Structures are given as structure tokens and as C-alpha cells.
């Protein structure tokens, strides 16, 4: 590119040529070109990720009208509110139980898909991954309709078994169950795909050796499959923990935090307080509480990834 642009300028004065050659050489230098190629990425991340992240730290120290510095006043206020502790509790229940069930279901389903003859695996994988492909906002609407208080298709089906109408989103505990169920439905296929890829990379000889040594199926999973998949399981789980902990769409659409704020998690409550309640500093403080857990998960992921890099 640089070559073509500079050609017409070669004819005039020699001094100019030399100076341009300096620029030319700089452009030819590997590090300069590389830096220019990454510049848009750096600018994007600096302007729309790093700056807002630091800005939210600043915002969290302001009062509601954002005119006065109040230090940790917002946090003091939060610690005194029962709703805040409810949100902390629900966020942990939601994220941990959803991730555990996603990981378990993903692991089990991956094994079943792996058992099926190779030429049929594609079809099953295709069907089972559909929940992950549909935009979560759209599929949660379908769940909302399945859970509808008066026309619930689930309650219609359950009534044949004599199970009374279940208040899927009306009762606090059922609503907690429902948001977790929808999240598991949405996230389990991701685990399934990751585990399936990991299962396929386990050498067949290991299983043969285990079978010769007389290992039963449980021992084969415990001593061969799990150690071989350890890394993928760790990364996938930590990654999913971050995404689930920061979830917004599902809770927002399914319950909007209700009944009585019992299903609010950090993201939905920050939205309620910060955007709907237009108390931006308080909302920023609420979402900052996600940082410690995200940071811990991120550190572990990085450690695992660099370990993989060293092994390879």
C-alpha cells in the first residue's frame, strides 16, 4: 500500500525523498505496522470498555443528582437495605445452581450424543443446540407464555396428572426455580458442545487400556474421562459462571425481579435502580458488586489458559 502511494513523489527534490524514505521505512517496520493494525482495537477497548469501567467507579461515589462527592455513601446505603442482601443471596443462588445444573446436564447429554453412531451425531447435536441459537430475549418470551398464570401450557399438561396449578412466576420460590430452569435450558447446550468436543479428543487407547484392566463404566469416567477433560470443564464452568452471574435478559423478561424483588439479580436490580429509578450512582454501585466474582473467575480462567499454552 505504502509503496503505491509514494511512487509519484519519487521524481522531485532528493531531500524530500529522503524524508519520505524515513516515513517509508517506519511504515515498513514490523512493529509500526503491527501497532497501526491493532490501533482501532485498542481505541475501541479504551473508549468503550476501560474508560466506562473506571467511570463507573467515579459515578459510584456521587450522590443521586451527581453534584456532590459522597465517598462510600452509596455503599453504606446499600448495606442497610434488605433488598440489597436479597439480591446478593439470589444472585449467588441463581448463578451457582444454574451453572451446576448446566454442567451436569451438559456432561450427561454429551455422553449420550457421544454414544450414538457417528453419522447420527450431527442431527442430535443440531437439535440440542437450538436453545443456544435463539436470542435469549425471544426464547424467554416463549417461556413466559408457557408459564402464563391463566393459560400455562405446563399447568394444562400437569393437570392430567392431578398436579394442581403451579404459580410458576407468581410465588417467590417457584419464580426462583423458573428463572434457573430457563437459564439451564438456554446454557446447557453450550456445555454439551464443549464437552462433546473434549470427549472426542480423549484417545480411544486410554479406554481400551482401562477396559483391559477391568474398569467398569464409572471408573472409566472417573479415572479416564474426567482427568482428560479437566481443563475444558474448568474453563467452561468459570466462563459460564461469569455469564450467568451477569445475566440480564432472562430475569428481566421472565419476572422483572418480582414477586417482591425476590428474583432480582445484580444486573436487573442495577437496571431498576439506575435507569428506571434514575439514580445512576446507586445503579453503578450495585453493578460494581459483580466485579469481585468476575475478577476471581477471570484470574482462574487466565491461569488455565496460560497453562494450556505452556503444555502445548
Amino acid at each position, binding site marked *: 500500500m505504502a509503496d503505491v502511494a509514494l511512487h509519484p513523489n519519487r521524481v522531485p527534490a532528493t531531500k524530500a525523498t529522503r524524508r519520505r524514505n524515513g516515513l517509508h521505512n517506519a511504515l515498513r517496520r514490523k512493529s509500526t505496522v503491527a501497532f497501526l493494525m491493532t490501533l482501532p482495537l485498542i481505541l475501541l477497548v479504551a473508549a468503550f470498555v476501560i474508560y466506562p469501567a473506571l467511570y463507573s467507579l467515579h459515578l459510584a461515589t456521587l450522590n443521586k443528582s451527581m453534584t456532590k462527592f459522597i465517598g462510600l455513601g452509596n455503599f453504606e446505603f446499600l448495606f442497610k437495605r434488605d433488598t440489597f442482601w436479597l439480591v446478593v443471596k439470589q444472585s449467588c443462588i441463581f448463578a451457582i445452581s444454574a451453572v451446576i445444573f448446566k454442567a451436569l446436564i451438559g456432561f450427561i447429554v454429551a455422553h449420550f450424543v457421544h454414544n450414538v453412531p457417528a453419522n447420527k451425531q450431527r442431527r442430535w447435536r443440531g437439535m440440542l443446540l437450538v436453545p443456544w441459537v435463539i436470542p435469549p430475549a425471544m426464547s424467554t418470551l416463549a417461556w413466559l407464555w408457557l408459564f402464563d398464570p391463566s393459560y400455562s401450557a405446563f399447568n394444562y399438561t400437569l393437570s392430567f396428572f392431578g398436579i394442581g396449578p403451579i404459580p410458576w412466576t407468581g410465588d417467590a420460590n417457584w419464580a426462583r426455580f423458573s428463572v434457573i430452569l430457563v437459564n439451564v435450558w438456554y446454557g446447557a447446550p453450550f456445555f454439551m458442545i464443549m464437552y462433546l468436543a473434549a470427549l472426542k479428543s480423549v484417545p480411544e487407547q486410554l479406554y481400551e487400556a482401562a477396559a483391559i484392566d477391568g474398569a467398569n463404566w464409572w471408573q472409566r469416567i472417573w479415572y479416564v474421562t474426567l482427568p482428560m477433560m479437566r481443563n475444558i470443564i474448568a474453563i467452561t464452568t468459570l466462563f459460564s459462571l461469569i455469564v450467568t452471574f451477569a445475566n440480564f435478559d432472562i430475569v428481566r423478561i421472565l419476572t422483572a425481579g418480582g414477586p417482591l424483588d425476590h428474583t432480582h439479580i445484580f444486573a436487573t436490580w442495577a437496571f431498576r435502580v439506575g435507569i428506571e429509578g434514575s439514580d445512576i450512582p446507586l445503579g453503578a454501585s450495585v453493578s460494581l458488586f459483580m466485579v469481585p466474582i468476575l475478577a476471581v473467575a477471570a484470574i482462574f480462567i487466565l491461569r488455565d489458559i496460560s497453562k*494450556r499454552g505452556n503444555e502445548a
Partner: protein
Amino acid sequence: MSTITIDKAGPTRKVKKYGSISRDRAWALRWSYFFLVLFAIFSLTPPLYMLITSLKSSAEISAATNPWWVYHPTLENYIGLLTSNQFLRFFWNSAWVSIIVVTITMLISVPAAFALARMKFWGSATLATGVFLTYLIPDTLLFIPLFKMFVLIGDWTGIQLINRWYVLLFIYPTLTVPFCTWIMIGYFASIPKELDEAAIIDGASWFQTLTRIFIPVALPGLIAATIFAFTVSWAQFLYPLVFTTSTDQLVLPVGIITTLIKGDVFNWGQIMTGALLGAAPPLIIYAFLMDYYIAGLTAGATKG
């Protein structure tokens, strides 16, 4: 005599054992199919229920007949939505935002990934790690400061960004670029060094190496990254919910939720039709390019 009996016993025992293993396998297979069918039902119930409801008239829905069956299929919901200017507006907003964001994402992340994978420079390893870390920062952490930032930019410069669909063009790349860069680094790093060394020796510039060698060779990765960027921009819900409010600026997911749900009156037939139409583009892409989709999904964690 003894040798003969041994000879006879050998094969029979062998046959018997094979039989039991294959019987075990057959049972394992049957159980696998059984559970796979159960899980497939679990996975496909919501989308199928969307389809069922979208074919019902509102009279049939409120009559509370068997919810799993359509007695009088009708396309009135589809006709209603596809002739409504508002809905088409949402659809076009979504389509434009997604297409432009995919283009921006590719223009930023492909050169960056190339530089980070091949042209070692001061801080390139740190930057690659930083890109991955950025990918881990969720949208829910940044929407409040970003909202305030755009309000302030509007106040200072007079450029109205809040409640304009194009504000999403600045924000969505923060979700797509880090991941796309990350998986492209993986794909580029897997290309043999000899290939680009040969190109450089033949006098190709870095730019030519990228466009003539790397992009064609890493095309599957490029397709996977494109699909990912499109899916993420199409599905994003939080940012448009926060940054856009008037009905002509909304994208599809937010549009369906804010306009079709009017107070306590839920027009479920139309909502399900809208949801299904909103889910259609990613589903269609997925149906045709499933292998790329899965490659992109697994590349994020297995390469690196």
C-alpha cells in the same frame, strides 16, 4: 484329545463374550436414544410452542383449548406483523445494526488478530491477554456508565446519541470484537509460518500477506467469527433497552417486548409470531452453517 477340546472351547467362549459386549452396547445405545429424545423434547418445546401459538387466532388462544394443538390454523398473526410498518421498522433497524456491526467488527479484529498472531511487537502478548479479558467483561457492568457517558457527550457537543439507533454501532463492537479477535488469533496462529515467510521473501507487503494468504487460508475461522458477530448483535437486548426508547429507533427484541406487551394485555399470538420471526435469522444461519457455528463456539476455549 485335550487339544481338540481346547480348540473347541476357545472359539465358543470368544463368541459368547462378543455377544454380551454387543448386547451391552445395544442397551447403552437404546438408553442413549431414550434420554436424547427426552432432552430434545426439553430443548425444542419453547420454539415449537412459539410456532403453535403463532398459528392460532386470539379467539382460539383465549378459548383455552388444548394449548399444544392448533384447531384452526391461521396466518393472521404473520400477516398482521409483516404488514405493520412498526414491526418492519424494528426488523430493518436490527438488520442494519447487525450488518454494519459485523462489518466494523471484521475490519477491526482481522488486522488486529493478524498483528497479534504473527508480528510480535512490544506488548503484543499482554495485549492478546487483554483482549481476552475484555471479552470476559459483561455488558451488565458497563451499561450505566456508558449511558451517562453518552448523555454527557450529547450535552457537551450537541450530538444526540441517546435514543438513536446508531449509538448501538459504537457499543456492539465492544461485545463482538474481543471474541472475534481472540478466535482469529487462534486460527491465524495455526497457519504454518513457512507460508507467510515465503510470501515475504517473494516481496509481499504485510498487507498483501494478510489479504492474499491469511484471509483465504483462515476462511472457516472468518466465517465462524462473522456468524458469531451477527448472532451477538442480533440477540443483544440490554444495550438497546437502555439506549433507545422511541418506537422508530428500536431493534427487534426490544421492539417486540415494549410494543406488543401493552400494560396487562398480552396479545400472545402476535408476541409469539414476533419472537419466532426474531429468532428466524440466527436459526436459518445456524441451519445452513452449523459446523462453522460450532467451530466458532469451541474455538473460543480450545484454542489459545
